[in-house]
């Protein structure tokens, strides 16, 4: 590459980062304005104010507790989805059994029904089995929304792994399970961690089920609590507070991505068995 064109990729990077961050930046500055100049359109808020953040963490709305709930629900969902999704994907990628395509089709079919229409029957089911106001009532639906993508994505990944690797491992005396755990899984790490991030974010942001199956304040997740934020008067929608809360719930995910992104770049480039 010639010296003159070296800046082109950086320009591309800058454009893409700006595209992604500009609306988020607007969210950030809106959250830092005082409630009274919330519809100011200066790019930097003057004066800076933490008013909205104080309102978010105000003791009365239980936001901190709801963050904990969100972590619990999204975390358990992610672990379970990875666990059972990986097993299923491995079977679909490596085992040759009848009805494989049927299973694949059934799994993806469940992603085709409008989620909104699942709500009332699901609610009836959960009231019937006494799951209202429980964590599992939020975890299991989130799992079912995340599983189809997880299974399909992981299957595609396992398929991409050269068969010879497992064969070599088995010649070395590994059982299929060992070959899978020690050879395939580390190599598929980018896929696994990507799936983890996507599942976690989807579960973290799930709103309508969490809103409907739980009515105890201490079990509610962050998006539900945010929807309950109010302004000082009727009709006054607490925009600054909502934006501040939006920033607060987005940051943990960004940190998570920063931690996991190393794993995403692991994979074949890291070479061989871990």
């Amino acid at each position, binding site marked *: 590459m010639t010296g003159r064109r070296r800046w082109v990729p950086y320009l591309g990077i800058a454009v893409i980062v700006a595209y992604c961050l500009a609306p988020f930046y607007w969210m950030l500055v809106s959250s830092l304005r005082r409630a009274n100049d919330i519809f100011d359109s200066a790019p930097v808020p003057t004066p800076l104010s933490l008013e909205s953040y104080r309102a978010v963490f105000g003791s009365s709305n239980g936001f901190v507790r709801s963050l904990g709930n969100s972590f619990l629900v999204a975390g358990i969902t992610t672990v379970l989805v990875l666990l059972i999704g990986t097993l299923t994907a491995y079977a679909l990628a490596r085992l040759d059994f009848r009805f494989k395509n049927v299973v694949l089709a059934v799994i993806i079919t469940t992603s085709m029904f409008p989620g909104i229409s699942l*709500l009332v029957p699901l609610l009836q089911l959960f009231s019937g089995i006494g799951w209202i106001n429980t964590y599992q009532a939020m975890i299991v639906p989130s799992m079912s929304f995340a599983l189809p993508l997880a299974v399909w994505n992981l299957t595609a990944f396992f398929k991409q792994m050269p068969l010879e690797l497992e064969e070599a491992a088995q010649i070395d005396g590994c059982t299929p399970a060992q070959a899978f755990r020690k050879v395939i899984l580390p190599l598929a790490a980018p896929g696994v961690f990507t799936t983890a991030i996507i599942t976690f974010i989807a579960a973290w942001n799930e709103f309508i089920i969490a*809103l409907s199956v739980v009515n105890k304040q201490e079990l509610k997740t962050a998006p539900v609590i945010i929807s309950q934020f*109010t302004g*000082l*008067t009727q*009709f006054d929608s607490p925009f600054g507070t909502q934006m501040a809360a939006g920033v607060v719930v987005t940051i943990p995910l960004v940190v998570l991505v920063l931690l996991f992104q190393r794993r995403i770049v692991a994979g074949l480039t890291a070479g061989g068995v871990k």
Partner: protein
Amino acid sequence: MVVRGRVRGAVLATVLLLGAGACGGETAPGTDAGASAPAVLDGVGPISLVTGKDISGNLQNQVDEWNSAHPDQKVTVIELPEDADAQRQQMVQNAQTKSDAYGVLNLDVVWTAEFAANQWVAQLPDAEFPLTSLLPATVETARYFKRLYAVPTTSDGGLLFYRKDLLDAAGVAPPKTWAELSAACEKIVPSQPGMSCYAGQFEKYEGLTVNFTEAVNSAGGSVVGEDGKPTLGSEQARQGLNFLVDGVKSGKIAQKARTFKEEEGRRAFQAGELLFHRQWPYQYAKANATDGSSTVAGKFAVAPLPGLTGPGSSALGGHNFAISSFAKNKKTALDFIRYMVDEKQQRANLEKTSQAPTWAALYDDPALVAKFPYLTQLKKSIETAKKRPSVVKYQEVSSAIQEAAYSAMSGTSTTEQALTSLQGKLESLTGK
């Protein structure tokens, strides 16, 4: 269509209940005893109060006070999202699963018919509540087929906010009619850059139903007549809608006002962009704030809504408390509602939240009037207000109204086309 024919044939009487009409007078017919006589409200013990989030924090104080006086009948507050549609959705879902999780429901006044007809809320005995001390118009919103299903706790009525400074300077009195309003605008607005004449709530949502209904009522017409039949073919209905449509055409209503809900309009008013604004009373305190957020503090006043030939009439807002049919401990729920609707609690609520009470005497209390100067106008507004159609299919009626008003105001259909189509839709929705 087989079904529709059957439906229309079967029910000539009523779906709509505006006014007494066909079903006046009679109560409790013997045929359907279980459903029509007030259910026995018994059971004492803990209950829940289901409501949108409490704005002032005063609700929790009131509940705490109740709880310390009734340790065996504790009330737990279940908070729903801030958005009214989402609140209604949660309450409907709870009813559909027949869950006893919800006890006392804080219902918007326009939901009464739907919740009553589906028997999601229990019928209440009139005698248990101080109904005669409440504004009569608000009690009407709690009735369905003459029976009481809820108790009004807060009310609301539209007011005309106007720039007193500019009107006084031009020597113009607050307008009582639309013609006077137009004349005032023509005199004042041209010399005020960036200002437009009038706005209300014109985004396509419930607020537009309110503004359309008010326009038609203020022209002397009605959306649905006394007999429950839609009456949008009338000349008054045409003139009512034309007030809004001509406003947009002539620029008296700014184009961007078509995106206004309550808050967008309030911001425009506070920024000095509006001479007149149809708004709920909550704007009074906000627009008078002297912390720099409002450029019109001290420069405005309120008047009743104007009409075609004289004062207009507002639509009624507010909330009523009802008891979920699936709740346990209905006796406690009833006692708690009595406690909440009482003068003492309503006074405290007004002082803390500035929400319009339903207790009539509070509007004439000199101390309160001094603190909330709009109370006198608000009482007039509520007393002459008309309730929005009280129909089971209110949501569909409201959607049809929004569709008609929105298309006429954005110019995609004429006033006549919009009203003809709306009349047809309402006839089929009401079976008339």
